[in-house]
């Protein structure tokens, strides 16, 4: 057997090796004026180098909160109350702030959604892109600048040497997102989290950015966690998917299988509401209702109020995430019934 180059997204041995990121039973509370709510509840997933895992869900489902807990950037009102986040074998949640800072960049890195706000408006972009090298490698300003220019070239900014002196507002939205990605991958992190990296961009630019992320993933052998609400982006760019609803994981598995045969009514509802799949001339199906307030999540299944399959058991007993096939799991008492639908 020929050894594959490391850049290939080799599926077979990825399963056996230690995952680049393993989140286990993560729970996050948010303290508000009107009490404490559980924003993320018992979330587990793992991702290997060279693969992309999508965290999929609607606004407020806890996907961004999960990402921020992993990189340690939660607001002071939010607090991790349980679980572990293992990166490179160590549980980062147990580390001191100082030790965690050392991992921010070389091990765990994050790209945010709004690139204009995420770049410092009063610093030239070259300086911001060079900053990881100054912080972690102790490079001089001049050396860091050269690194920054190289990064700009890699992510496809034309005339990087001249543009390094420009300020964020002098770039287009797509270019700014490229800069933000360049900054996040500067130190070739093991895990790159991308929080809605293309939401603010138009469709053509979106495709370019996703392609860039994919190329960088292969080239730098990173594990990518893609946080999104866009089913099409997940279908096209992710290997595995974790679907979240009201702070809970409702279904997880390889994207292709989950999308072909959803085993949770929420997943099915989402997929049915994609226009391409709908029947012409009929109203577009949608998941009726809206997610529960986090302060009033029902004791049973979190999805019961909107679920077509809901019955008595769902009101009393919260379904556990249980295996529905190899590498797949769903949190539904009646997931069996969906196979026949």
């Amino acid at each position: 057997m020929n050894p594959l180059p490391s850049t290939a997204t080799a599926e077979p041995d990825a399963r056996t090796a230690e995952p680049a990121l393993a989140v286990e039973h993560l729970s996050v509370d948010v303290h508000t004026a009107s009490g404490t709510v559980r924003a993320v509840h018992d979330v587990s997933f793992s991702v290997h180098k060279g693969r992309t895992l999508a965290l999929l869900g609607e606004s407020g489902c806890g996907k961004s909160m999960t990402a921020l807990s992993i990189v340690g950037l939660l607001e002071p009102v939010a607090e991790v109350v349980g679980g572990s986040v293992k990166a490179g074998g160590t549980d980062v949640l147990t580390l001191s702030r100082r030790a965690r800072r050392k991992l921010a960049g070389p091990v765990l890195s994050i790209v945010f959604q709004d690139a204009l706000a995420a770049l410092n408006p009063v610093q030239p972009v070259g300086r911001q892109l060079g900053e990881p090298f100054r912080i972690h490698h102790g490079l001089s300003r001049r050396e860091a600048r050269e690194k920054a220019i190289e990064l700009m070239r890699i992510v496809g900014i034309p005339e990087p040497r001249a543009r390094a002196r420009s300020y964020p507002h002098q770039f287009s939205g797509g270019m700014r997102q490229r800069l933000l990605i360049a900054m996040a991958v500067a130190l070739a992190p093991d895990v790159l989290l991308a929080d809605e990296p293309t939401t603010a961009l138009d469709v053509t630019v979106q495709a370019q950015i996703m392609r860039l992320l994919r190329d960088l993933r292969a080239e730098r052998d990173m594990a990518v966690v893609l946080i999104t609400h866009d089913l099409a982006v997940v279908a096209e760019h992710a290997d595995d998917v974790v679907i979240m609803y009201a702070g809970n994981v409702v279904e997880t598995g390889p994207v292709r299988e989950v999308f072909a045969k959803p085993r949770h009514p929420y997943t099915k509802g989402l997929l049915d509401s994609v226009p391409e799949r709908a029947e012409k001339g009929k109203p577009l199906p949608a998941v009726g209702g809206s997610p529960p307030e986090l302060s009033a999540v029902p004791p049973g299944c979190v999805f019961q109020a909107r679920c077509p399959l809901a019955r008595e058991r769902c009101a009393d007993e919260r379904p556990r995430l249980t295996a529905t096939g190899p590498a797949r799991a769903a949190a539904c008492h009646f997931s069996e019934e969906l196979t026949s639908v």
Partner: protein
Amino acid sequence: MTTFLRKRIVSSAIPLVVVVLGVFILARLTGNPVDLYLPLSATAEQRAAFSAEHGFDQPILVQLWDYLGQVVQLDFGESLRTGQPAAEMVLEAFPATLQLAAVTMLIAIVGAVLIGSLAAYRPNSLADRTSSFLSMTAASIPDFWFAIMGVLVFGVSLGILPTSGVTGGPEVWVLPIATLLIRPFGVLVQVVRGSMVAALSAPYVKVARGKGASEKRVVFGHALRNATMPVLTVAGDLTIGLVNGAVVVETIFGWPGIGKLMIDSILQRDFAVLQAAVLLTAVTIFLLNILIDVCYALLDARVRQAVPA
């Protein structure tokens, strides 16, 4: 940048002219210098001669026209009191005021940035609430009251600080600077705190933390520069207030600056000196405003480019 400067200079020139006209007319409302400079027993001829010598017998518009004609030739007239050229007297007094204002603002800005940033770093902490309370108090104390209390306590009762004058060691600076400092310092702490709270919650600060930046780097490298704009605006205004408002402090402490000179000139109806002093103050304020705008442009590229060519 030159377009930017040119525009600012043109737009500031009009207020300058208005100030010159205003002072000229207001000064003459204080009364006729003749009454002050000649003895009560002076004859009508003597009074007429005095008026004619200094041009006070002319209609006010003619006086104004003559004055403007002199000003454009940089001739500001002579003091009625001393016969010295007014420009000379004003320029002699000005450095004392500038020194006072510069030292005060330096202390106020450095102190306010440190304390305001500290307060903003942990909003609602004990440090934040303490500094908010104290700075609010400082900003509310009237300076003349503070000056008088300072003189009373440290000068008269304790006898450890001089009550007025500029002769002596560094202790002569303490009370005048403390008096001038208290309000700008209080105001600036509040402004720094407010803009730092906003800057520290901006997404780019989160990104900087995500890069592994130390807290020192986050606060001073990323947030502070963004918080500088409002601070600069207020600090600029306060500096102008100091140059302007040194009148009270200089009078109380006998500080030989331009504020004291102005008061003396008004009391003596020494129009030429008063006009020169006000004009110099106005020009200083005008230059300060331009300096502030230049600072804006240097600090933020968005301001630089916002000015249409």
